[in-house]
C-alpha cells in the first residue's frame, strides 16, 4: 500500500468500478464490431447506437430465476462463479496506470497503481491460476456431463498454455531484470520490448488468447461439442459472473501485454491512464477481430500448437535473450 490504507481502498473501489463499466462498454463494442465484421448492424435498439444494451442485458440477467440443478452440490455450485469473478478482478489490481500524479486543485500526490511489489508478475500468474478453480469447481459441482467435460477441457487448456505463457514472459523479466510492473514499464522508455522480444511477444499473444478462452481457442465452451462447457448449468447472474470473469481476464491479459511489451502507461502527450486504455483497447480490438475471422481449432490441434510449437519457440526466445543479456 503505497498511499496508506484509506487512499488504497478508494483507489481499489474506483478501479473495480471503472473496470466493470469498461467491461460493460466492451461487450457493446464487441457485439457492434462482430456485427460489422459480419455485415450486420449489431445492437442498435436500446439507447443511442444501442449503447444501453449492456444495461438491458444486466436487467434481463437479474430477473432470471436462480435454480440449482438436480444432483448438484449446492454450496460449491453457488460458490464457483465467485471464485472466477474475484480472481479475475484481483489480478487486474496490480496493473500500473502511470507513476505519480497530483490530485487536481490540491497538492495531494498519489501513485497511479494500487501496489507495486517485487513479485507483481508472479502475483498475477498466481491469482490467474487460482481462477481456474472457478471453472473446474463449477463444472464438477453442476452434475452434468457437458459441464464436467467443459471444465476438464478448460483445465487441460489453461495448464498447457500457462507453460508457454510463462516462458514467453520470462524473456521480458530477464531483459528488465525485475518482476515489478512499474520497473518493467519504466525500463521501456527508450524501446518497447515487443521489438527485441518479438518471438516472445508472438508466443505471449497466442497463449494469452488461449488463456482467456477466446476464439479460436474457446474449446471449453464449444457449443457444438460440449453445449456451453463449464457454465452449461448456470443461468442468470451466475452465468453473467462467469462471462464477466472471462472478459475481465481478457482485459487483464491485454493490460499485461501492454505493460510487458508496449511500455505500459508511457507515451507522448497524453497522460498515462489514457495511454494504458488506448493500448488495452487496441489489444481487445485485435482479440475481437480474431474472433470474427478465425474458425475454432480442434482439441488435438490446440494441444499440438501449445506443446510442439509455442513451447519450443518460447524456449528458444528464452535462450537467445539469456545469451544476449549475459554478453551485454
Amino acid at each position, binding site marked *: 500500500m503505497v498511499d496508506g490504507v484509506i487512499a488504497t481502498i478508494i483507489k481499489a473501489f474506483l478501479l473495480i468500478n471503472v473496470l466493470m463499466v469498461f467491461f460493460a462498454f466492451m461487450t457493446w463494442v464487441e457485439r457492434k464490431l462482430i456485427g460489422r465484421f459480419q455485415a450486420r448492424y449489431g445492437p442498435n435498439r436500446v439507447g443511442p447506437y444501442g449503447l444501453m444494451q449492456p444495461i438491458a442485458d444486466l436487467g434481463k440477467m437479474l430477473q432470471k430465476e436462480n435454480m440449482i440443478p438436480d444432483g448438484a452440490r449446492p454450496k460449491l455450485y453457488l460458490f464457483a462463479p465467485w471464485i472466477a469473478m474475484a480472481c479475475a478482478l484481483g489480478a487486474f489490481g496490480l496493473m500500473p496506470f502511470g507513476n505519480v500524479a497530483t490530485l487536481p486543485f490540491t497538492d495531494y500526490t498519489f501513485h497511479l497503481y494500487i501496489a507495486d511489489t*517485487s513479485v507483481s508478475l508472479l502475483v498475477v500468474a498466481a491469482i490467474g491460476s487460482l481462477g481456474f478453480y472457478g471453472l473446474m469447481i463449477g463444472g464438477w459441482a453442476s452434475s452434468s456431463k457437458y459441464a464436467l467435460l467443459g471444465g*476438464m477441457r478448460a483445465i*487441460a487448456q489453461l495448464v498447457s498454455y500457462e507453460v508457454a505463457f510463462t516462458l514467453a514472459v520470462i524473456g521480458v523479466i530477464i531483459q528488465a531484470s525485475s518482476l515489478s510492473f512499474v520497473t518493467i514499464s519504466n525500463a521501456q522508455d527508450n524501446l518497447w520490448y515487443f521489438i527485441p522480444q518479438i518471438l516472445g511477444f508472438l508466443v505471449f499473444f497466442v497463449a494469452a488468447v488461449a488463456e482467456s478462452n477466446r476464439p479460436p481457442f474457446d474449446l471449453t465452451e464449444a457449443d457444438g461439442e460440449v453445449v456451453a462447457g463449464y457454465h452449461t448449468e448456470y443461468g442468470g447472474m451466475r452465468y453473467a459472473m462467469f462471462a464477466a470473469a472471462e472478459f475481465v481476464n481478457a482485459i487483464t491479459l491485454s493490460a499485461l501485454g501492454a505493460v510487458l511489451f508496449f511500455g505500459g502507461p508511457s507515451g507522448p502527450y497524453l497522460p498515462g491512464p489514457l495511454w494504458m486504455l488506448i493500448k488495452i483497447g487496441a489489444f481487445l480490438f485485435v482479440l475481437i477481430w480474431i474472433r470474427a475471422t478465425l474458425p475454432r481449432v480442434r482439441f488435438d490441434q490446440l494441444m499440438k500448437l501449445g506443446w510442439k510449437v509455442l513451447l519450443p519457440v518460447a524456449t528458444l526466445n528464452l535462450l537467445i535473450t539469456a545469451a544476449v543479456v549475459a554478453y551485454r
Partner: protein
Amino acid sequence: MGIVVFFLAAAAAIATAVAVVAQRNPFVSALALLGNLVSLAVLMLLLEAQFVAIAQIIVYAGAVMVMFLFVIAYVGPRGEVGPGERKPWQVWLAILAGTLIAIEVIVVTYGATFEDWAEIDGNYGSPAAIGQELVTNYLLAFEVVSVILFMGAVAGVIFGTGGRPRRLSNDEVLAKETESAELRRREASRAVLDATRESMGEGS
C-alpha cells in the same frame, strides 16, 4: 494489522487441515487442501517471504492441486466415501507420529521468546535475493533438483506413451504392409460375397 492477519490465516490453516481428513468427499478434501496451501502462503507473506509465498501458490495451487482435482473429477467417486476398514496398527502409528510431531514442536519452541527479533532488510525474500542464493551458495542443490525434475519429465513421457516403441526394420515394415493389405483385400472380398449372398437370398 499483521497479528490479526496471522490469527485469521492460522485459524484457516488449522480448519482446512482438519477438513482435509474429516471430509467424506475426495473432491471437497482436495479443495480443503487447496485452502490450506493458500493460508500457509499468507503466513509466509507475513514472514516477508514474498517469493516463496507466491511460488507456493503457483506450484501447489496452480499445478499440483489442479492435477489432483483433475484425476478425482474424472475417475474418482462423486459421492461420499465410506469410513473403510480401520486397522489397529494404523491407529497406533498415527498416535506415534502425532506424538513425535508434538514433541518436535515443543522442543523447537521451548525457551523461545519474543525478545530477540531477527533483523532483516527490505530485500529479504525478494526474487533477486533468492536467485542470488540459488546460483551461489546452493548451486549444487539447484542443479541436482533440475536433473531430478528432468528425470520426472522423461518418466512422465515414457509412462504416458506406454514404453518406448521398437523401431522396425525396412523388411518388417514391408511385411506388415503386405500383411495388412492382404487382410484388407480378404475383408473386402468377404464383404462382397456376403452382399451377393444376401441379395441372392432376398431374390429367392
